[in-house]
């Protein structure tokens, strides 16, 4: 059996609900002696799974089921409240990439910022800048400040950088939802290439066909718990059933 690259065991996570939070020094000073209500929203409950070398694992679930939080914990961006995540390989997350650039800098400077954060050296990045811009079809806008970019252009640039930065494991949130048909096609091609080359993938999508087509295995998250683990097409079918039940329930 192929070695495990990511292993999550009993991962739980809660967030404090903002309405009961005190956000300023003033509020803390004024409310010092007043009891502070603690209201927590449980986002993940004892989630366990494993990702093996070279495997493409899908992650499905309705909005608010905890998918993005799980990806952030696995990527090391959020800490878990309890449980354990062992990562035995270098992880490249591609999360929320449409947002988050420095609007005052041009594409090339932003490529260097995001690329170095993702662990590339400047030498690697400078050698790859052309290729990145070509992949994003933005060669003509290389020296344009990001404030003038459309959201689609910015997202394309982000995927182009991230695909170049992939180390061992790739973690993707809604990857094929960006850009026009041509760009989607290129992203899917890149994904297949990386998979063939032996990279492990963790892929979130709302699109059952995407999960069925690109993943070997999948997990279904429901209210922060894993309710189904199995072959990708079976999980995709179950997800569609869940949505259909929702529609039926709201029709009643």
């Amino acid at each position, binding site marked *: 059996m192929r070695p495990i690259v990511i292993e999550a065991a*009993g991962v739980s996570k809660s*967030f404090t609900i903002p309405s009961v939070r005190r*956000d*300023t*020094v*003033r509020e*803390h000073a004024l409310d010092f002696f007043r009891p502070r209500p603690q209201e927590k929203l449980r986002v993940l409950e004892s989630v366990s799974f494993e990702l093996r070398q070279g495997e493409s694992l899908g992650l499905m679930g309705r909005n608010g089921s905890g998918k993005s939080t799980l990806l*952030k*914990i*696995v*990527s*090391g*961006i*959020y*800490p*878990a*409240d*309890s*449980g*354990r*995540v*062992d*990562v*035995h*390989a*270098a*992880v*490249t*997350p591609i*999360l*929320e*990439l449409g*947002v*988050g*650039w*420095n609007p*005052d*800098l*041009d594409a090339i*400077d932003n490529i*260097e*910022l*995001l690329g*170095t*954060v*993702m*662990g*590339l*050296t*400047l*030498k690697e*990045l400078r050698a790859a800048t052309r290729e990145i811009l070509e992949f994003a079809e933005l060669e003509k806008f290389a020296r344009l400040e990001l404030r003038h970019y459309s959201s689609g252009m910015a997202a394309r640039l982000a995927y182009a950088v991230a695909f170049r930065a992939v*180390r061992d494991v790739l973690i993707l949130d809604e990857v094929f939802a960006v850009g026009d048909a041509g760009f989607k096609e290129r992203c899917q091609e890149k994904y297949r290439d990386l998979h063939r080359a032996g990279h492990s993938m963790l892929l979130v999508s709302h699109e059952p066909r995407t999960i069925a087509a690109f993943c070997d295995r999948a997990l279904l998250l429901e209210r922060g718990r894993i309710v189904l683990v199995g072959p990708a097409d079976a999980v995709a079918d179950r997800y569609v059933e869940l949505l259909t039940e929702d529609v039926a329930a709201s029709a009643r």
Partner: protein
Amino acid sequence: MVPVATTRVRPGHGLFAGLVWTLIRTDFKTRYHGTIGGFVWALLKPLTMFLVLLAVFSYVFANDAQYKLDLIIGLFLYEFFQEATKAGLLSIRAKGYLLTKARFPSWIVVVTSASNAVITLVLFSLVLVVFLTLTGRAPSAAAIALYAVYQVLFLAIVAGFSLAASVLFMRYRDLNQVWEVVTHAGFFVAPIIYPLGILPERLHAYLYAWPPTPIILFSRSVLIDGRVPSPLAHLLLFAEAAVVLGVGALVYRARAPRVAEEL
């Protein structure tokens, strides 16, 4: 048994040297609007400020050459402190768009946030030493070396403050307002526009606890008066810098893991 939450990631990202350089370079570029003459503007700012202050103070305090130089050093060092701590406090918020993208040590963005202020400080120091040399009061190499040590300690103090403030700011959203008031009041706590001697001796210890005070006084002392503060005074300054940096690092370490959640 209480489960322990850990995310162990095998290292494989190198030392982020490229990130440090890119952050410094792009901060500089953003500040000077990426103009070709960017570096010229960066150089001109401390130079023109120095000349303007010198001209004005030479007129206002015509018969006190010592005071006008003391004043200029105090003003510049305090401005460095204000600018660098403000940038440090805002750093994690300002660079949040990077912190939600990948796992990397966020202290890198905190520490590099002072880079623009450091560049201005270095250029000011050069202008000052050149001016002193041209007017026949050239400081000795030892004096310049000590001055450099003080600035490194100043930077350590700024880094300590910034580490704590940047993570606390994510929780206390009005901390920048509070700090602005503190630094404005602190301008008068540090003996910048008045000589320390006019205050009663029992207050001096409190004034020295405010970090800009010893830095400004020691810098003036070695560069202008050619007097080296006592070994004990140096020891206290080292201790002060170590405490600020240490406490800052502890606060940062306690809060930094959850900072991405508050962005």
